[in-house]
């Protein structure tokens, strides 16, 4: 929800963040987006809806999540004080559920009995299947056939929760193609279906709405750090694929101009190889999936195949608000490679007894590289956006072990 008295007023009423965002969709969907915008505008200040959402977040998701001081990691790196925002401790194991809880309540209000979702790593699919089961909604999840292979545990979790997982075999068979297919489903079944987009991207109002639902992360973290230390942090760090966990952490701090914000993209095998998923570092502005934003594309406007060790970051676009924060210089966007992310993963395993998701390991890896050069008086909050149980098979395979 918007910060009271904020100087930062984005997006514009028609969904633009500077030159980014907007609503680039087939005409058939415009009516549904108008309806969704109107309903959301009404509900976001409706005390009954807000209470319902807060109760669900407390009783079902398990919020607030701790802001945990990572003492051994801090000592190991010997620089800034490192706090982890423990989104991995949410029900279903990642931040994704903050958004699906909110959107499922919207679907219920709209009287739509069916929800669909796209998923990459499977975390958003699981979070959608979970809330659908709880509210008795029919649920279908589109997932690239490549991702189905590398995230087989999450696929099975979704099935246990009663969702249909539909393999997508077009294009690169990953998250972007799953999103294409979900859009095709929605345009066909728009009367009875709500599309729960999992990241802060897509046509207006999704980037704004997902940001608002995820802002619970930053709102809690802000209050928690003030309580723990009596002052705001110096630096916020989060991984960025579509960017929902990052915008959720960043947004409540946007007006705090002394708080530096760093988003970490997936550098894959290295930016110089072209095999990565870092549009804010190496992309150009384009239009895909309903919004204008930085995009990995060739010079003919064809969207390029991406690579990341982490399925959840393996996406050629990025939420439009991140593109805007980059343009205005309010946030910085960097990248770390697959190998560095793995080092971050292992470092957190052994210093703190935490298995982070490979997505979140990118943020840890950047901190591991940069915290040592910072002063011990400085404070970093890292968004630990999800837990790594889903990645065990991938990590084992890298170690040459078959489980």
């Amino acid at each position, binding site marked *: 929800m918007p910060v009271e008295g904020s100087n930062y007023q984005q997006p514009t009423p*028609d969904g633009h963040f500077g030159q980014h965002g*907007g*609503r*680039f*969709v*087939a*005409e*058939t*969907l*415009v*009516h*549904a987006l108008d309806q969704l915008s109107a309903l959301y505008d009404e509900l976001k200040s409706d005390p009954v809806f807000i209470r319902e959402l807060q109760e669900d977040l407390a009783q079902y998701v398990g919020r607030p999540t701790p802001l945990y001081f990572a003492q051994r990691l801090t000592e190991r790196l010997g620089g800034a004080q490192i706090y982890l925002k423990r989104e991995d401790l949410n029900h279903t194991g990642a931040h994704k559920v903050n958004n699906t809880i909110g959107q499922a309540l919207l679907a219920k209000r709209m009287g739509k009995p069916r929800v669909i979702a796209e998923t990459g790593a499977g975390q958003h699919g699981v979070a959608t299947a979970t809330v659908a089961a709880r509210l008795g909604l029919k649920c279908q999840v589109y997932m690239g056939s490549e991702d189905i292979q590398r995230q087989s545990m999450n696929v099975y979790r979704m099935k246990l929760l009663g969702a249909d997982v539909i393999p997508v075999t*077009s*294009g690169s068979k990953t998250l*972007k*193609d799953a*999103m*294409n297919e979900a*859009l*095709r489903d929605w*345009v*066909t*079944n*728009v*009367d009875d279906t709500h599309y729960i987009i999992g990241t802060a991207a897509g046509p207006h109002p999704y980037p704004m709405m997902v940001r608002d639902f995820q802002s619970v992360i930053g709102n809690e973290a802000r209050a928690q750090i003030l309580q723990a230390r009596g002052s705001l942090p110096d630096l916020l760090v989060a991984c960025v694929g579509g960017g929902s966990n990052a915008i959720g952490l960043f947004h409540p701090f946007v007006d705090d101009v002394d708080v530096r914000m760093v988003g970490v993209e997936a550098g894959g095998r290295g930016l110089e190889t072209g095999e990565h998923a870092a549009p804010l570092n190496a992309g150009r*502005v*384009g*239009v*895909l*999936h*309903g919004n204008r934003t930085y*995009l990995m*594309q*060739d*010079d*003919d*406007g*064809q*969207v390029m195949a991406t690579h990341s060790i982490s399925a959840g970051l393996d996406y050629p676009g990025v939420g439009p608000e991140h593109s805007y924060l980059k343009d205005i210089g309010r946030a910085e966007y960097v990248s770390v490679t697959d190998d560095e992310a793995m080092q971050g993963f292992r470092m957190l395993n052994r210093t703190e007894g935490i298995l982070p998701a490979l997505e979140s390991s990118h943020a840890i890896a950047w901190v591991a590289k940069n915290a040592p050069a910072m002063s011990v008086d400085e404070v970093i909050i890292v968004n630990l956006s999800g837990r790594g149980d889903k990645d065990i098979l991938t990590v084992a395979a890298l170690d040459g072990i078959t489980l």
Partner: protein
Amino acid sequence: MSRITSCLKNLKDSGRTALVPFVTAGDPVIDITPAIMHGLVDGGADIVELGIPFSDPEADGPVIQAASERALANHVRLLDVLEVVRVFRLTNATTPIILMGYLNSILGMGEGLFAQRAGDAGVDGVIMVNMPPEESLSLRKVLDPVGIDIIFLVAPTTSDERARKIAAAASGFVYYVSLKGITGAGHIDVESVRTNLERLRKLINLPLLVGFGIKNGTTARAVGQHADGVVMGAALVQTVAAHADAPHTIPAALTHQLKEVREALDRP
């Protein structure tokens, strides 16, 4: 008066229904596309719609997705598509040509450069599936001076208020999407098309052409009784796919297929 406007006016004056076939440019190979376009005109096409191959055709069904993939496998670029139009224009100066696709293709080239090149090549209109009028201002600014129409879609879900807004932004004609869904989908509900067109005619003072779900002469005729024209895509693209191993046979096959539709439309 633009080539599209005068074409549709002439048809209306003579009481005929416009027939607008769609194929994807460069499917299966770019060299055959000009011959395919002439073949479509021989089969009775009044306007030819050429798809720009795109990596992420989010409003298209499997048939037209596959056409894009075939073309992209041969590295067909927007520049090649414009070259095809130029070559077609060498021997046909009258049939309007519309490019249909997704906005990022044009953005990739740059809107200004695209407008200049498309104008030079002889393009008459563009349909950008994922560009509603609200997001069209910058493209319109560069296409107006070169006389290229922007054709917008209206859908069964389009409200009256929105239909007026679309009419204000559109030129050439307005494309009514006959069903909720993707290209090549489903069964067309002619009664719903009729009532929606009746509603839209009161709001939109441009010709209304109907696409999505036109598969053959029978569906074309049923819809054509209520519309100013029909657009037929997936059924033709299927023919292209079936002949992909022998591209030189495609133009004649499409001529044959389209003639049946033309005759059904023209039958008294």
